[in-house]
């Protein structure tokens, strides 16, 4: 996989979540994702960027345009140095919440993406990578 383009958006406030949504939309338009796939990846990004801010205490989102063979896609990495997730399986379940939300963020973001990877260690932080291919 090669990275054709990359940019980072710091996520330390609610307004930054809006900036992440806009940056992801721009990248989605650039590779010509259709409207439904654009909406899916932007919605997933919104959920995960909010997690970075609310649960991770802030961090950043990396937005990359990648290609693999003939296909192009968007890869998003959400990283924080927060308290981490002790039980990832439990956190992925719909309805599980530690922050008073609906508990749809992680599972929902996974359903809205083609690839989904999560690494987290209690006390060290969380890194989630998702991708959507054209």
């Amino acid at each position, binding site marked *: 996989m090669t990275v054709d383009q990359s940019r980072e958006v710091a996520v330390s406030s*609610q*307004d930054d*979540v*809006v900036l992440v*949504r*806009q940056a992801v*939309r721009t990248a989605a338009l650039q590779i010509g994702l259709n*409207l*439904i796939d*654009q*909406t*899916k990846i*932007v*919605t997933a990004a*919104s*959920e995960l960027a*909010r997690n970075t801010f609310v649960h991770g205490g802030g961090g950043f989102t990396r937005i990359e345009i990648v290609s693999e063979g003939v296909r192009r896609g968007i890869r998003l990495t959400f990283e924080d140095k927060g308290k981490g997730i002790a039980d990832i399986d439990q956190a992925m379940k*719909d309805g599980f919440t530690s922050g008073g*939300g*609906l508990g*749809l*963020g992680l*599972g*929902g973001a996974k*359903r*809205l993406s083609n690839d989904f990877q999560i690494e987290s260690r209690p006390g060290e932080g969380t890194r989630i990578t998702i991708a959507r291919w054209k």
Partner: protein
Amino acid sequence: MDKIPILRLGRFLLVTIQVDMHDRLALALQDDLTSQIVSTRAQGVLIDISALDIIDSFIGRMLANIANMARILDAETVVVGMQPSVAITLVELGLSLPGVRTALNVDRGMQLLRLSRASEDSDFDRRPIP
């Protein structure tokens, strides 16, 4: 812009969301609407979301909260104009917006509000208070 305007249209309140909302703005709208339902004695709320590109779980929860609070305050809520791509994404995300009534556009939404209030008007509101 840190406030979403709420218009009064007879017995109903009309809100058109035209900005990409951060979470604080969504919460402010929820509070503003709730207090305006009481102060204007509105019987219905129409929320036009045709300009919204996405609905994530936070905005979805705000819409459900508004509908539930309005119901407790004796007002109906209708959400209109959802884009098809937004609807598809919402379902995949796992949100079904429980308790939120929807209509295709503002016209149909108004019709729905009038209809749901018409029956009550005829046998209750128009009766003289003894």
